[in-house]
């Protein structure tokens, strides 16, 4: 097995409602959805977002499109209308998710290499 960042397996988009941020995790290859289910756990997400999340973290499963959806509550220092945070929208929070380390088989071809090979 090898350790690679989530960015090689999935893509992500984030946004906000009130003081909560929503961060999706979407497998490039729907066959990797099981990897997301097993490894992109609430605990693993807590390890990344815990220091800024004052509420709870919830995970929702969206199997038809091979995706997970996370909601971090109380994560924006009051939300866009109240926050003193420099990045007020939560729109830059998805890139933190993509740093998550995953354990993948040695012969797994990540997204960046797959694109290079296709080119």
């Amino acid at each position, binding site marked *: 097995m090898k350790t690679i960042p989530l960015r090689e397996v999935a893509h992500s*988009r984030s*946004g906000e409602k009130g003081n909560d941020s929503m961060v999706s995790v979407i497998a490039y290859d729907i066959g990797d959805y099981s990897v997301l289910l097993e490894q992109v756990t609430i605990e693993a997400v807590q390890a990344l977002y815990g220091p800024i999340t004052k509420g709870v973290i919830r995970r929702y499963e969206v*199997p038809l499109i091979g995706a997970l959806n996370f909601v971090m509550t109380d994560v924006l220092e009051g939300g866009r209308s109240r926050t003193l945070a420099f990045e007020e929208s939560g729109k830059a929070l998805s890139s933190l998710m993509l740093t998550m380390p995953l354990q993948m088989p040695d012969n797994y071809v990540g997204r960046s290499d797959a694109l290079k090979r296709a080119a």
Partner: protein
Amino acid sequence: MAQKKTGKKVRMGSAAGWSRDRFEPATDLMNRGQVDYLCFDSMSEVTMSAAQVSRMETDRVPPYDPYLIPRMEPILKGCKEKGIKIITNQGWLDPEEAAQQVAALALKLGIKDLRVASVSGGILTNTIGTMNLNFIETNRPIADSLDTVVSAEAYLGAQGIVEALKGGADVVITTRIADACLYLGPLAYEFDWSFDDYQLMAKGMVIGHLMECGSQLSGGYFADPGYKNVPDLANVGNPIAEVTDDRVLFSKLSHSGGVVSEATCKEQLLYEVGDPANYICPDCVVDFTKVSFKQIDENLVEAFADQAGKPRTSTLKALVGLTEGFMTEEMVIFAGPGALERAKGTQDLLEQRFKKVALKATEIRFDYLGINGVHRESSPAPIHEPYEVILRVAVKTAERSEAEKIRREIDPLAVNGMSATGKWATSAPGSRVRPVVGLSSCLVPRDLIRSTVSFFK
């Protein structure tokens, strides 16, 4: 319930995803999009309260989107000539006034028989305190905060738009409605959908939810070079939804940049969604876990939504804006050897100065841009000494005069601070202090809200 067959094909273009989105997609979609509708979303959560605050500061700000006329002027005549209808929520606090202004613009442009409709009714600023409601966030009575309420507005559904279109409107200008309803409205009108058929309501909301953020469906907010490549982002084409009795197809303006793929659709499907199985909208509840996509051709994706609807709830969500004092921010700039040490020393110096001038702050925040300015306390520790560091200080206060103290301590750093202290925007005149309007939310029983549709020639 089986959908009636109409044999219709309706094409809708997403002309804007928020109030300060690009202008040219509207003209491009009008000229080359072969669309029946141009839809403009001009709202984020903070839009209405920010407009209310601007009007408290100066009465020169209109009660509707200040970009309304600039957006309509280049397209109004062409859309009328081509029979393209315009749906926009740029009416904000006063859709009737906005509609009158657009009717006046039509006269000025020599457009004959343009029928402009307004949809109003969700503004609750003066009544929210009497409805015996609690805030969702704190469960405290809204009535207790009445002296700080500056705005309150419900998210209306699509019925007003349908009524306006049935009345022959060429242009429909609304107050706050749920963004996706800008698209559900025309669809419900064209296909004669019953608002009690929540499967059809959900179909419309899925389409609207995907379209409401403009190019976020067609390659905007998507590019991650080497991982997600997007061609010609500078000329990204806005999305087009083509809906028939049986099919829903997403594409974008031809000969434009960007990409429409299963991946872009999936990202937008989950954008700003909490529980995907229960996305609560004014006209139904949508189960996004029932939605899937299939790439049909280059930049052409078909969407499927099987039994994605659930009955609407008995309430409408409303946002309440509350005055919560003032905030301000300043930045001090460092680079080269010892940059981080000098930034930290400046924070220490400022904390001493704030004590000396007896700053009464409700919240103080220091950020080190380049180190932890974006992901904040979740940022990993830097491996190397950074070449550049920007120290940012942000403060909230109850009184404006307290917030004004910050710049009076920052500007003197030019001569009293650390070695090689760089400054930010020192020549900008005036105050950078701005009022804070915090947004909270509540659920309002539907029967307390009356929507009104009016027509202007």
